[in-house]
């Protein structure tokens, strides 16, 4: 193989089309398309212009900007805010480490988060809740992300340790946020005081972490050769999937107490979390079951032939292939779980949407500003779900799985 031959023959990739050519091909390829473009373009420009004018000059964002703490943590005692800050910093650190370890989309997310923190920290406005301490705290988080990045980059940490840390954060977080009866350092804080994005994220993260294993268990249960187990799992999955989430939320918030001993009291937020978990688990179970069905029987037979036990075959052969095949569906389920957490408003929990509603209803002036508040809520939910779907697409292409949609 003479490499000089290859060098002489210059094989160039097709050049990207020029600007004018692009316009001709994509906007004016036929008479119909030209007419469509001519009609649509002014409409789109007009709408974008109107929206921009409204957002920048006409809208009154007072109801949004006045209560940053309410939106993020709800009524959480202001003297105990360091607990929330501690968890937030922990997440920022982990985000930095993950960025250093894997890069890719995590880099964009970390940089975006850092940029947002920086912008908020140096906002040139007087704000009661944006004290000097708060600004310093926000800036120090950027430094923390960079430290995390260096750690992740320089020290070869095992991937599973990073995953484990991510899973531990919500658990440690809940313990820290709830506090202990006997402790003076972290006195208990009633969950009725929790609110805002904090509750939304807790419900979503808790729901994801808890519902996934339950879903896998139910999927195996449904495929089990034991009729009792399989019938129980099937009925469970089908009943939950057959009724709306609102029903399940009410069931856990009203009916569940009747079926437990009279003296037992389960916290309101925990009941909501249970409902979200059970609901999501039933859907995850069906996704996982689809994956399990897609694993060829030959794989299992080969594993058995190699002398692997049932348990080992399941954990090391079947499950990895099954989960990989249905990863897009599973992430899709997580996204809808995140969006579904808004339904807890109906049973009176002040999640992000709930806080927005209480702010609107707290003052006749803010009732007039509801447009701004609701659009702000929509934007925040949109950003987080869009990021999740973006992440899922990246993972899919990295793992070579194709999405159905």
């Amino acid at each position: 193989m003479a490499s000089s031959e290859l060098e002489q023959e210059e094989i160039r990739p097709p050049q990207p089309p020029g600007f004018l050519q692009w316009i001709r091909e994509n906007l004016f390829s036929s008479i119909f398309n030209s007419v469509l473009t001519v009609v649509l373009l002014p409409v789109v420009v007009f709408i974008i212009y109107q929206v921009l004018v409204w957002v920048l000059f006409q809208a009154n964002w007072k109801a949004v900007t006045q209560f940053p703490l309410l939106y993020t943590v709800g009524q959480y005692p202001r003297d105990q805010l360091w607990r929330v800050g501690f968890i937030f910093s922990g997440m920022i650190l982990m985000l930095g480490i993950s960025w250093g370890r894997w890069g890719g989309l995590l880099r964009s997310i970390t940089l975006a988060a850092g940029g947002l923190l920086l912008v908020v920290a140096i906002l040139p406005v007087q704000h009661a809740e944006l004290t000097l301490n708060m600004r310093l705290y926000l800036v120090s988080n950027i430094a923390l992300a960079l430290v995390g990045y260096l750690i992740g980059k320089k020290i070869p940490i095992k991937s599973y340790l990073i995953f484990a840390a991510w899973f531990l954060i919500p658990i440690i977080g809940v313990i820290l946020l709830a506090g202990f009866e006997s402790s003076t350092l972290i006195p208990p804080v009633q969950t009725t005081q929790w609110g805002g994005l904090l509750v939304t994220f807790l419900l979503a993260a808790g729901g994801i972490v808890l519902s996934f294993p339950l879903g896998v268990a139910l999927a195996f249960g449904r495929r089990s050769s034991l009729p009792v187990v399989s019938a129980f799992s099937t009925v469970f999955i089908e009943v939950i999937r057959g009724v709306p989430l609102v029903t399940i939320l009410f069931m856990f918030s009203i009916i569940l107490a009747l079926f437990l001993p009279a003296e037992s009291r389960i916290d309101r937020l925990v009941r909501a979390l249970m409902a979200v978990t059970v609901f999501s688990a039933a859907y995850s179970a069906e996704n996982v079951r689809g994956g399990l069905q897609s694993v060829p029987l030959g794989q299992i037979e080969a594993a058995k032939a190699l002398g692997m036990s049932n348990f080992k075959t399941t954990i090391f052969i079947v499950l990895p292939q099954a989960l990989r095949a249905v990863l897009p569906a599973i992430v899709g389920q997580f996204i809808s779980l995140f969006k579904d957490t808004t339904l807890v408003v109906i049973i009176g929990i002040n999640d992000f949407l709930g806080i927005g509603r209480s702010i609107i209803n707290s003052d006749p002036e803010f009732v007039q500003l509801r447009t701004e508040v609701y659009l702000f809520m929509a934007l925040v939910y949109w950003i987080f779900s869009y990021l999740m779907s973006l992440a899922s697409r990246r993972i899919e292409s990295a793992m070579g799985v194709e999405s159905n949609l």
Partner: protein
Amino acid sequence: MALQTPQKTETTAIPFYRDERVLQIAAQIISAVLIFILLYWAVVNFLRAAEARNMTLSFGFLKEAAGFPISNPPIEYDPSMSFARAFLVGLANTLIVSGAGVVTATILGTLIALARLSSNWLMSRIALAFIEFHRNIPLLVLLFIWYFVVFSFVPPIKDSLVWPGPIFINKRGIYLSWPRLTETGPVFLIALGIGIVVAIAAFSILRKKRQETGKKTYFMPVSIGLVVISFVVGWFLAGGSPFWIDTPSLKGFNFQGGMRLTPEFAGMYLSLSLYTAAFIAEVVRGGIQAVSKGQIEAARALGLNQFQVVSLVVMPQALRIIIPPMISQYLNLTKNSSLALAIGFQEVFAVGKIAINQAGRAVPVFALIMATYLSLSLLTSFILNIYNRRIQFVVR
């Protein structure tokens, strides 16, 4: 066997704790016992709680007077009627909003999917923006935006917006002109019904003949013609006036006549339709894109025109992929209609919730609500699955 002395041959008896059959049965019994204990424990707790709080498990209250009003009921209702009747009103509301939502979402979703596939970049981007906006915000937020924001800018009754139709839009709702049957109307409907049945029969017979013999049978014009003929015949049988148009008009402080859609219904219907349309658009797009290009090229090479390519080659193949996820979108839409509770549209769940708040009925009412949704889901997926089976590949 077990009595034999163990030998190093293949007849060696397996100890019972390693025997798969024994293990299976043991696991079976253990799981059955565990589930039974759990259920028993729950039931005992419940009976104790029921006694302490004076709760009922019977459905007797269904016959009692409901005692609460329902605004704009689709079937006749007043608070003195039974709770069962109130529940039926709720069910009717659920069915109406889901049915209307399914139809609108399907049409809108298909149009958006086509726009997304358009060769015009701008069109495709607009469709993408619609899809990404609706797919990534929670339905409840969308519902609040429509109900609390958009509908709050609607003018009061005196300065109603008037759209062609005429349609009047104001704070009290949307008033549509609505066709209503006259006394001779049923005659017309029966004639039209017979015409449609005959047309469908003619369509399938003639099309089968066409597929078997290859002769032109004009099944499309014939069946359309039959419907038109029955329409005209029915119109004359009914004396030329099977309908009258009920136009809403302002009388005093309120509109009279026409079809009133409450703001609650309109908000729920619009947000459900738009939200589901975004998901359906992605389903339809995926289905159409999954049809391989070779199929379309082959059809063109055979001399089929554009309409034939789409209706005979692309759609039958795309539908096979589209239908199953479409079924689950329809089911989601029906279940999501329960969010109407948040804005006070009185469908099954909202009606049930009022009854729950009246002491002691929580469990039976809940059972009723769950049974209703379950049977709705099962019925929908049953019917659609029959259709799905018909259009799937027949493996010969």
